[in-house]
């Protein structure tokens, strides 16, 4: 039996192994040195599970009616939808200026740098930033969330546009079509599925952000009720009811998104 020659040294492999080893070591050290004198692990686990049981198995409404819950859920959905829509409209136009197969290089660079900056600042920070001028509330939430949505969707849309083969655009240009005609007749039909699925992804993100904004930025909606139920009434059962409402909507949205993209994708 011959032995294999030793594998050549790989810097990446070494780095991965060292990182894993250090993480393993830190985990052991951390667990060994936790200050857990005041915590009874058994009791804490039991209470944790009891809390979960109340949250998930015994949901009921106490301080709001079912109709009110639906109203508040609708407000949150509306906040998510509105910011996605505004972001998508801005992003569609701007992304045409970013896609390298459609726009001049300088314009692409300019818009790309600006949107990279917009994306680098988290959504919540944008909302707080606009709260300075608009006051904490729904206006700041709408502007701030739209801002970040646009930045995110510009990148996503532009990449979808860049998937289109140069030849297709060339063919229409060679037949004398104008730039806008090419966009409407070739770019949009080719990328509509990708655009839709990115928009749905962003709507999901904006929906969950809208919940957080309801609590943190006073934008209203189900997020605020959840904040009240958890932080003010300490009512895990009511919080459970809200959680299920949010979950139900998220599943419905997912089902709708999948169905819509599938229908457009299906060859006719």
């Amino acid at each position: 039996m011959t032995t294999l020659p030793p594998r050549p040294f790989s810097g990446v492999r070494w780095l991965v192994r060292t990182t894993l080893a250090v993480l393993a070591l830190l985990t052991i050290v951390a667990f060994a040195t936790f200050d857990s004198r005041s915590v009874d692990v058994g009791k804490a686990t039991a209470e944790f599970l009891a809390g979960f049981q109340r949250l998930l198995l015994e949901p009921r409404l106490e301080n709001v009616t079912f109709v009110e819950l639906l109203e508040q859920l609708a407000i949150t959905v509306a906040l998510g939808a509105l910011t996605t829509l505004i972001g998508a409209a801005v992003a569609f136009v701007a992304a045409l200026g970013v896609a390298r197969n459609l726009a001049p290089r300088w314009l692409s660079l300019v818009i790309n740098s600006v949107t990279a900056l917009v994306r680098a600042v988290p959504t919540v920070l944008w909302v707080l930033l606009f709260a300075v001028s608009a006051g904490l509330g729904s206006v700041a939430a709408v502007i701030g969330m739209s801002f970040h949505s646009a930045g995110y969707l510009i990148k996503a849309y532009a990449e979808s546009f860049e998937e289109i083969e140069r030849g297709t655009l060339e063919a229409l240009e060679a037949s004398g079509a104008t730039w806008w005609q090419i966009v409407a007749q070739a770019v949009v039909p080719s990328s509509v599925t990708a655009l839709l699925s990115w928009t749905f992804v962003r709507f999901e993100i904006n929906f969950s952000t809208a919940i957080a904004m309801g609590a943190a930025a006073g934008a209203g909606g189900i997020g605020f009720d959840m904040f009240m139920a958890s932080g003010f009434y300490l009512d895990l059962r009511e919080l459970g009811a809200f959680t299920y409402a949010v979950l139900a909507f998220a599943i419905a949205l997912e089902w709708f998104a999948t169905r819509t993209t599938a229908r457009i994708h299906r060859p006719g």
Partner: protein
Amino acid sequence: MAFLEITDLTKRYGAETVALDGITLSVERGAFVVIIGPSGAGKSTLLRCINRMIDWGSGEIMLDGVAVGALAGPALRRHRSRIGMVFQHYNLVNRLSVLENVLHGRLGAMSSLAGVLGLYSAEAQQEALRIVQMLGLEPQLYKRCDQLSGGQKQRVGIGRALIQNPALLLCDEPIASLDPNAARVIMDTLAGINRTLGITVLVNLHQVDVALRYAGRIIGVNQGRVVYDGPPAGVTRDHIAMIYGAEADELLIERQVTDVAA
């Protein structure tokens, strides 16, 4: 003056690469011209200069008495709309139907807004149907182009060019991605268009045998220069060697040249 006059056309990519090196040729109306030459000889560049998809360095192209180099804006669009172009990779919008892709050829003749909204006139739609029937694609009229075979796709590409009602048809390697049967259908279609509609056709080809069979005239290009310009019958082994280089596969070429000579 001939229909198409190219005078001393020169095009460089960067400082080093010379794509076209003083090309001079003229094409009569109604001709069927095949341009042969190795990859990188400048065939594609030459075609794309004629409809100004590429700007060149020096020289001039006159099409039907119009100086192509000076065109800009709407005049350039009008110029392009009178020239059909067929591509190796068909370059269709795959998500759209055969009918929609054929109608795309009309965009250049429409107002920008009507084109954006896809408001094709009833007459344009009739014309599209007639062309689709002529190309034998009627059963596929509403089929999406990503469901077609290569040969069918290329026929859609030809349909898109034909609905422009072009004076000139530029074909850039139209059969390079097709199997022999589909290639035959496409070349027969192009020859038929030339014969019955009187449209001037310029075809770039790799296949010397196909070129010799279909061409009314052969232009051999090597390193951006015209090295042969004449009837297919006049193409000799020496010409082939000049066009493709001395190492060109003799097994492939000898038989075809002698076939034509015989």
